C-alpha cells in the first residue's frame, strides 16, 4: 500500500481546490487557487496570490502629510518607480550584514589581532634554508627557481589593520570576507627585495610561520592558504572561527611591506624586476637586448604597498552619502549574478568601488544620488567607456615623473590607474573580461531604458551562469596543454612576468586568436575565470594544471553563421601571405564569380545545424595550428542536444531544411489557390495554420511515397487503407491551411446553411484542383485534403462573418447582440487567431534562425515527459517565442542548446500565478498597454486559466491555454524542469563530455498507478522515440516516388485513437499520459476523489458498480473490469497492462 511519493505529488489535489505553486518554490507549500469560480468567491483571499487593491475613498483622498509628499517626490526623482524603490530597499536589507553579526565579527577580529602579535619570532636564516619550518606546514608558494639570495627571520607584525569593504560597510552577504593587512617589520626586508621574487618568498615564509602557530589555536575552525586576488605569488592566510560561526566570516591575512619601503620608480610598468639570468638560468642573448619589462610582477608588489591608502580614499568618498554605499552593494550583487567578480582576474567589488570613486571625482555621480542611480550611472559609464583603449586615472597630479597612460596601455589590456598614478587597478583583468563587463552593462542599460516592469528582477535577481548565457561553450582540458601553447606562441617574457603561470600568460593571446578567427560569427568571446584555490596549510600549493578547466563561452552572431566562406584578400595583395599564415593549410586560392581570385577558407557545412557548428571547426583548427592544442583537448559543447530533434536516420541536419521544403511546397499550393479559375467567389487569403508552417513541428514531414503492396487500395475513392496483416503504416499528418473566401451578399445568414455552403466550396475546390492541376484531392464537409509533391495539406474554407453569425443572439425585444459561444470561439481560434499566430512565428523564425530548434526541443522535452497532452502546441511555441522576444537579461539565443536551457529556467521559475507571460509579437504592445493588461489580469485572475499567455492578438483570454494545462500538470512540469535544468547544465559543463544527454528526456515512470505497454508494431512513430530503437517495423514507404498516386493513409495513429477512447470512457476516473513521439508506455493515474464511494446517481454510473458498504449502497469504480477494458479497447495494440500499486483498493 506504499504510495509512491512522486505520484502523490502529481496527484496533489486532483479535484480538490487546485494547487498552483509559485514557481521555484517547488513542492509542498500551500498557496491555493480554487479550480472553480464559485469556490474562489466563497473562500477568503488565497495566500500567495495577488489581490486587486481596494482602498476606501477616505483613505485615497485624505490630506497628504508632509512626510508622504516628500517620500513621493523622492521616489519620483531618485527612483524609477515606487516598486523599484521598495525592491531595492528589500534587497539591501537582505544582503547587508546585521549589527548583531557585526559585533560577533568584531569580537573575532580582536581575538585574531591579539594572537597574531603574540606569534614568537625566529632567528635569521638564509632564504633557501627552510629547515627551521615545522613539519606540519608547507611554504604556500611554488619556489621556481628555488635558489634566491637573501635572509629571512620572523618578527611579529608592527601593525595589524583591517582593510577592504568590511570597514566601508559595503560588504555583502553571503561570504563575508574581512581583509587584514599585516605590516612586516622593516628588519625582515633587505634592499633589492623587489627583485626576483625575493619579497614574495619572504612574504610566503612569513605566512607559513604564522599559519603554523595559528593552526594550533583552538579559536579557529579552519586555517588554510589561498591567494590574494588569485595571484599565485601572493598567498594569504584564511582564518575562520570555530563552531557555529564558521560560515559567518573569513578573515584573510595579507602581509605587506612597511610604508615607503619600495621605491615606486622601480616598479613602473616599463621596468624589469625579474632577471632572465635568474629566472631562465641563462643570460639574455649576447646582443645586449634589454631585459623584458615585468609589468604584472611590478603591479603585484605595488598592490601590497597601497592597501591602506586605497582604504582611506574609499572611506572618505563613500562615507559622504549612504546612496554611494548602497550603489556599491547593488553593483556587487550585479557582478555576482553575472559571475564576473569571482576567480582570477575578475572584475571585483573593489574595482567597482574605485570606479564609483572615480565617477564621484569626475562629477558623474553626485552624493545626493540614490543607490539605484549610482548603479545606473556606473553601468552607463561601463557601457560607453572602453578602458581597453582609453584608460582612466584617479590621479590628479600632473607630476612629469609619472608614467603616461600610453605606457600602461602597452603593458596591460585594461587600464584604470589609482590615485598614485603608478598602479593599474585592472592589471589582472583581461580584455575579454572587460568586454564581457561592458556587454553586460550595455544589456542592463537597455533593460533599464525599456521601462520593463520587472527590470529589477532581471537586473539583480536573475543569475547568469556561463552555460545559460552563451550559445556555445568549449572546455580546454587538460590545462597542462597550455604550457605547450605558451611555447608555441613564444610567450617566454609573459611567463617570466607571470612567474610561470602559463594559464594566465596564454589566456590573452588565445582569446585574441579565436576572436580574430571567428570574426563575423562572433558577438562576444568570454572565458571563465579560474577559481582561486584554497588548500590546507600542511599541503603544497596546487599546481597550475590542477586549477580546474578553462571554459570559453561564445556568443554567436546569427547573421554571420549562414556563411561557409571566409573571404580573404586578393591573391596578389601583400595581406594574402598573412591570411595564409593565419589559416594555414585551410586557406586556398579560389576564383569567384566576379572574376576576383582570392584567398579563401571554405568550411564543410550543408545544413543549418552544421553551419551553427562551424565555430567548432574554426576553433579546433586554429588551436591546433597556432597553439599546438590537439582536437582531443578541446571539448566543444554546441550541439549535443541536436540529436533529439534529428529526423529518422538523419545525422547531418536538425530538420530546418525539411521544414523549409514543406513551407515551399505550401507556398506553391497557395499560389495555385490564388490562381484557381471557376470558383464562384474569389480567394481573399490563404494562411497556414499548422506547426510545420511556423517551423515548430518537432519532426518535420517528409514526402510520402506509399508502397502499394503495403495498403488496401480503395480505388473508387482513390484512397489507401491500412491492412490488418501489416504493421501500422507511416503516420501522415495533413498540414492545415485556412483559405478565406471573399464576403458576398450571397452567403446565407444562418449558421447551418453557411456550413452547407462551405461544404459545397470544399467539394468544388477538390474538383478544380484535380481538373486544373492534376492534384489528388479528397473533400469532406469541413476540409479538402490535397496531395502535392508527397505533402498532404488540409484546406479549410473559411468565411469571415461566420463566427459573428454563431455569436448572434436575439433578445425578446428583437435586439440582436453578440455573445461568445463555445462554437464561435473555437471557429475564431481556428480560422483567425491560429493563422495570425502562425504567420507571426513564421516571421520570428526569419529573424532568429534558432527559434525553430528551441521550440522543437522544448516541445520534444515536454512530450517526452508524457505531459504533451496537457499543453496546446501553440502555448509551448509561444513560451519559446518569449525567450526570443524577451530575452532579458540575456541576448536572444542563437543555438537550440542555450535556448532550451533558458526554456527550462523560465518554466521552472516563472510565477504563473501572479504574472501573465507577455509575448510581444512584432512589438505591438506598448508599455502602457502592458500595464493595463497586467492590472486587468490581477482583477480577473480567478477566471483565467492557470497559465496565461498574452499576445498582441490575444490580450485577455489566453486562448491557447484555455483547455489546459491544469494546475497539477503545470506544477508537475515546473518540478520536472527544476530537476532537469541543474542536471543538464552539470552535464554540459562537465569537461569530460556531457555523457548521456538523453537522461533528462526520460520520464519518471514510477509515479504512475498503471502502465499500459504498447506493441511497437502498431506505433507508427516508433522511431521518433527518445531512445530510438535500433530496429523497427517497415512502414510501407518507398525511397523513390512510386506509381501510386492514391491518397495515403492520413492521421491514422492507433495509440492516439486508443487514448481518445480511454479518455472518453474513463476520463473522470483516471488521467492518461503518453509521449506521442514513439512512446511505448501509457501512464495511468487514478483520480483519488473519484475513488471515494459515492451515493448512486443515474448520471454518474460510468464504469462504476454498486456495493453495499455498512448497509448502505454506494458506488465505487469497478477497477478490475476497467483494467480488463484497457486490454479489450486496445486489442492488438496493448501488450500488457501492469497494475503497479494497490492504492485504489477500496
Amino acid at each position, binding site marked *: 500500500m506504499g504510495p509512491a511519493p512522486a505520484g502523490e505529488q502529481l496527484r496533489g489535489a486532483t479535484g480538490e481546490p487546485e494547487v498552483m505553486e509559485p514557481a521555484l518554490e517547488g513542492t509542498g507549500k500551500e498557496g491555493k487557487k480554487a479550480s472553480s469560480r464559485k469556490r474562489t468567491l466563497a473562500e477568503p483571499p488565497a495566500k500567495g496570490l495577488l489581490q486587486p487593491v481596494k482602498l476606501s475613498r477616505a483613505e485615497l483622498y485624505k490630506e497628504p502629510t508632509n512626510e508622504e509628499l516628500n517620500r513621493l517626490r523622492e521616489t519620483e526623482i531618485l527612483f524609477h518607480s515606487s516598486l523599484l524603490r521598495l525592491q531595492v530597499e528589500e534587497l539591501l536589507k537582505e544582503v547587508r550584514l546585521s549589527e548583531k553579526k557585526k559585533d560577533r565579527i568584531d569580537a573575532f577580529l580582536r581575538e585574531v589581532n591579539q594572537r597574531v602579535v603574540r606569534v614568537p619570532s625566529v632567528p635569521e636564516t638564509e632564504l633557501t634554508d627552510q629547515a627551521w619550518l615545522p613539519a606540519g606546514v608547507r611554504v604556500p608558494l611554488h619556489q621556481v627557481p628555488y635558489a634566491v639570495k637573501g635572509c629571512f627571520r620572523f618578527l611579529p607584525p608592527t601593525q595589524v589593520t583591517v582593510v577592504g569593504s568590511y570597514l566601508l560597510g559595503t560588504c555583502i552577504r553571503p561570504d563575508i570576507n574581512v581583509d587584514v593587512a599585516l605590516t612586516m617589520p622593516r628588519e625582515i626586508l633587505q634592499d633589492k627585495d623587489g627583485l626576483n621574487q625575493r619579497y614574495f618568498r619572504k612574504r610566503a615564509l612569513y605566512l607559513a610561520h604564522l599559519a603554523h602557530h595559528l593552526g594550533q589555536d583552538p579559536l579557529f575552525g579552519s586555517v588554510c592558504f589561498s591567494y590574494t586576488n588569485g595571484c599565485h605569488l601572493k598567498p594569504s592566510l584564511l582564518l575562520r572561527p570555530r563552531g557555529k560561526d564558521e560560515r559567518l566570516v573569513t578573515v584573510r591575512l595579507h602581509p605587506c611591506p612597511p610604508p615607503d619601503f619600495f621605491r615606486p620608480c622601480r616598479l613602473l610598468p616599463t621596468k624589469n624586476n625579474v632577471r632572465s639570468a635568474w629566472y631562465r638560468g641563462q643570460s639574455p642573448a649576447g646582443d645586449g637586448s634589454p631585459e623584458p619589462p615585468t609589468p604584472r610582477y611590478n603591479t603585484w608588489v605595488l598592490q601590497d604597498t597601497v592597501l591602506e591608502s586605497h582604504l582611506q580614499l574609499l572611506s572618505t568618498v563613500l562615507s559622504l552619502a549612504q546612496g554611494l554605499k548602497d550603489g556599491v552593494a547593488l553593483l556587487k550583487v550585479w557582478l555576482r549574478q553575472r559571475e564576473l567578480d569571482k576567480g582570477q582576474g575578475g572584475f571585483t567589488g573593489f574595482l567597482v568601488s574605485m570606479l564609483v570613486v572615480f565617477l564621484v571625482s569626475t562629477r558623474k555621480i553626485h552624493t545626493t544620488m540614490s543607490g539605484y542611480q549610482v548603479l545606473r550611472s556606473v553601468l552607463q559609464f561601463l557601457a560607453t567607456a572602453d578602458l581597453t583603449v582609453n584608460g582612466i586615472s584617479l590621479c590628479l597630479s600632473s607630476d612629469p615623473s609619472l608614467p603616461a597612460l600610453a605606457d600602461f596601455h602597452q603593458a596591460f589590456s585594461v587600464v584604470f590607474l589609482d590615485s598614485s598614478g603608478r598602479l593599474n587597478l585592472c592589471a589582472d583583468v583581461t580584455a575579454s573580461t572587460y568586454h564581457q563587463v561592458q556587454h553586460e552593462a550595455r544589456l542592463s542599460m537597455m533593460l533599464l531604458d525599456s521601462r520593463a516592469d520587472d527590470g529589477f528582477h532581471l537586473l539583480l535577481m536573475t543569475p547568469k551562469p556561463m552555460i545559460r548565457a552563451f550559445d556555445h561553450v568549449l572546455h580546454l582540458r587538460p590545462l597542462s596543454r597550455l604550457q605547450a601553447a605558451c611555447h608555441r606562441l613564444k610567450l617566454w617574457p609573459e611567463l617570466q612576468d607571470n612567474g610561470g603561470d602559463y594559464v594566465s600568460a596564454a589566456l590573452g593571446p588565445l582569446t585574441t586568436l579565436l576572436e580574430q578567427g571567428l570574426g563575423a560569427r562572433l558577438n562576444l568571446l568570454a572565458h571563465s575565470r579560474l577559481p582561486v584555490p584554497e588548500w590546507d596549510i600542511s599541503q603544497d600549493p596546487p599546481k597550475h594544471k590542477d586549477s580546474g578547466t578553462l571554459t570559453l563561452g561564445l556568443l554567436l552572431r546569427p547573421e554571420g553563421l549562414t556563411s561557409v566562406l571566409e573571404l580573404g584578400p586578393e591573391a596578389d595583395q601583400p595581406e594574402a601571405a598573412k591570411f595564409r599564415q593565419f589559416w594555414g593549410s585551410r586557406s586556398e586560392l579560389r576564383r569567384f564569380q566576379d572574376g576576383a581570385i582570392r584567398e579563401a577558407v571554405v568550411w564543410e557545412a550543408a545544413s543549418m545545424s552544421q553551419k551553427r557548428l562551424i565555430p567548432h571547426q574554426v576553433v579546433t583548427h586554429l588551436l591546433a595550428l597556432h597553439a599546438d592544442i590537439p582536437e582531443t583537448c578541446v571539448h566543444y559543447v554546441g550541439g549535443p542536444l541536436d540529436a533529439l530533434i534529428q529526423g529518422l536516420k538523419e545525422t547531418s541536419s536538425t530538420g530546418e531544411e525539411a521544414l523549409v521544403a514543406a513551407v515551399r511546397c505550401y507556398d506553391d499550393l497557395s499560389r495555385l489557390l490564388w490562381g484557381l479559375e471557376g470558383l464562384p467567389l474569389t480567394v481573399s487569403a490563404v494562411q497556414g495554420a499548422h506547426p510545420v508552417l511556423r517551423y515548430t513541428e518537432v519532426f518535420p514531414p517528409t514526402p510520402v511515397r506509399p508502397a502499394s503492396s503495403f495498403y488496401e487500395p480503395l480505388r473508387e475513392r482513390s484512397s489507401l487503407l491500412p491492412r490488418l496483416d501489416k504493421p501500422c503504416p507511416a503516420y501522415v499528418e495533413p498540414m492545415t491551411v485556412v483559405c478565406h473566401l471573399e464576403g458576398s451578399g450571397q452567403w446565407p445568414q444562418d449558421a447551418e446553411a453557411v*456550413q452547407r455552403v462551405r461544404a459545397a466550396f470544399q467539394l468544388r475546390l477538390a474538383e478544380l484542383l484535380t481538373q486544373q492541376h492534376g492534384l489528388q484531392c479528397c473533400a469532406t464537409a469541413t476540409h479538402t485534403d490535397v496531395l502535392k509533391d508527397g505533402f498532404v495539406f488540409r484546406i479549410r474554407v473559411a468565411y469571415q462573418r461566420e463566427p459573428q453569425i454563431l455569436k448572434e443572439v436575439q433578445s425578446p425585444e428583437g435586439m440582436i447582440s453578440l455573445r461568445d459561444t463555445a462554437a464561435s470561439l473555437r471557429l475564431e481560434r481556428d480560422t483567425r487567431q491560429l493563422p495570425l499566430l502562425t504567420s507571426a512565428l513564421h516571421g520570428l523564425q526569419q529573424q532568429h534562425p534558432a527559434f525553430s530548434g528551441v521550440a522543437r526541443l522544448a516541445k520534444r522535452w515536454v512530450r517526452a515527459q508524457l505531459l504533451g497532452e496537457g499543453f496546446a502546441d501553440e502555448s509551448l511555441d509561444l513560451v519559446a517565442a518569449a525567450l526570443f522576444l524577451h530575452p532579458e537579461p540575456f541576448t536572444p539565443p542563437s543555438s537550440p542548446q542555450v535556448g532550451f536551457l533558458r526554456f527550462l529556467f523560465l518554466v521552472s521559475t516563472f510565477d504563473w500565478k501572479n504574472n501573465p507571460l507577455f509575448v510581444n509579437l512584432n512589438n505591438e504592445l506598448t508599455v502602457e498597454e502592458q500595464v493595463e493588461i497586467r492590472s486587468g489580469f490581477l482583477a480577473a485572475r480567478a477566471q483565467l486559466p492557470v497559465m496565461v499567455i498574452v499576445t498582441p492578438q490575444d490580450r485577455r483570454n489566453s486562448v491557447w491555454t484555455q483547455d489546459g494545462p491544469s494546475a497539477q500538470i503545470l506544477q508537475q512540469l515546473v518540478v520536472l524542469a527544476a530537476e532537469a535544468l541543474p542536471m543538464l547544465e552539470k552535464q554540459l559543463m562537465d569537461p569530460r563530455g556531457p555523457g548521456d544527454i538523453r537522461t533528462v528526456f526520460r520520464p519518471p515512470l514510477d509515479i504512475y498507478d498503471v502502465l499500459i505497454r504498447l506493441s511497437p508494431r502498431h506505433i507508427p512513430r516508433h522511431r521518433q522515440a527518445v531512445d530510438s530503437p535500433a530496429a523497427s517495423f517497415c512502414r510501407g514507404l518507398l525511397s523513390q516516388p512510386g506509381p501510386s498516386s492514391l491518397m495515403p493513409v492520413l492521421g491514422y495513429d492507433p495509440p492516439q485513437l486508443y487514448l481518445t477512447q480511454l479518455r472518453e470512457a474513463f476520463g473522470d476516473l483516471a488521467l492518461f499520459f503518453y509521449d506521442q513521439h514513439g512512446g511505448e508506455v501509457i501512464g495511468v493515474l487514478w483520480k483519488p476523489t473519484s475513488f471515494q464511494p459515492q451515493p448512486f446517481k443515474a448520471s454518474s454510473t460510468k464504469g462504476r458498480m454498486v456495493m453495499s458498504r455498512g448497509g448502505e449502497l454506494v458506488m465505487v469504480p469497478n477497477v478490475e473490469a476497467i483494467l480488463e477494458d484497457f486490454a479489450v479497447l486496445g486489442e492488438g495494440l496493448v501488450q500488457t497492462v501492469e497494475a503497479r500499486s494497490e492504492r485504489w483498493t477500496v
Partner: protein
Amino acid sequence: MVARRRKRAARDPEDRIPSPPGYAAIPIKFSEKQQASHYLYVRAHGVRQGAKSTWPQKRTLFVLNVPPYCTEESLSRLQSTCGLVQSVELQEKLELAESRSKFFHPKPVPGFQVAYVVFQKPSGVSAALALKGPLLVSTESHPVKSGIHKWISDYADSVPDPEALRKEVDTFMEAYDQKIAEEEAKAKEEEGVPDEEGWVKVTRRGRRPVLPRTEAASLRVLERERRKRTRKELLNFYAWQHRESKMEHLAQLRKKFEEDKQRIELLRAQRKFRPY
C-alpha cells in the same frame, strides 16, 4: 488485488448482485476471456405524469452503464432473448438527441453510455429485468471489433464519399432557399401595409433603410454622443477642477504604492529577495 479476487470467488454465487433501488443489475463482459465484469443497471422506462417521451411507456427498457465496446447491434442481440426488440438507441447522456447529418455532426467516440431498448411487447421488459447474465458482448458467432480491427474499419468508414455529401448539401440548400424565398415574399407583402391598429412595420429592406437593431449599433450611437459631450467640456479650467485633478493624481500614486507594497510583501514571503 489478488486478495480481492479470491474473496469474490469465494462469495456465494446465489448472492444477489447489489443494485440501486428500482434497478436490476446484469453483469456484462466483453467475451469469455475476461474475468471481471461490468454491470448494466436496468429499469423500465417511465416519465413523470404529463411529460412527453420519445420512447413508448411500458415497452421501453432503460439501461445505464453500457460499456464503450457495446454497440447497438450487440445490445439488441443480447436483449433479444427476452423478446423481440424493436429498436435500440445509445446515448451519451440522459437527454434527448435529435438525429443529425453524419457529414456535419460526426458521431463522437463512445464512452460509457445509456441505452433505451424498445421491445415489441411489454413482456420483454419484465424478462429483461430478470436476466441473470453474465452477458457476453462478443461471441464467436457474433464477434465485435475492438482495438486495431475497429480502428481500421473506422478509418475505412471515414474515407469520405463526395457524391453523398453533394447530394445532402444540395437537398438542404434547396429547402433552405425555398424557405428564404418564402420569408422574403412574406416580408415584401407586409412592407408598408398597416396592421389592424394601423401600425406600419419598418424593415431594413424598405425604401428608407433604418439602423439595424443590434447591440453594436446602439453602442456606437452612445459612443458618438459621449464623444460629442466631452469635446465641449473644459478641463482644468476652474480652481476646483485643478484641485481635484491634483488630488486624483495623488490618489493614483497612493493606490500604486499600496499595490507595490503588496507585491513586495508577496515576494518577501516567497524569499524572492535572496539574490543567490
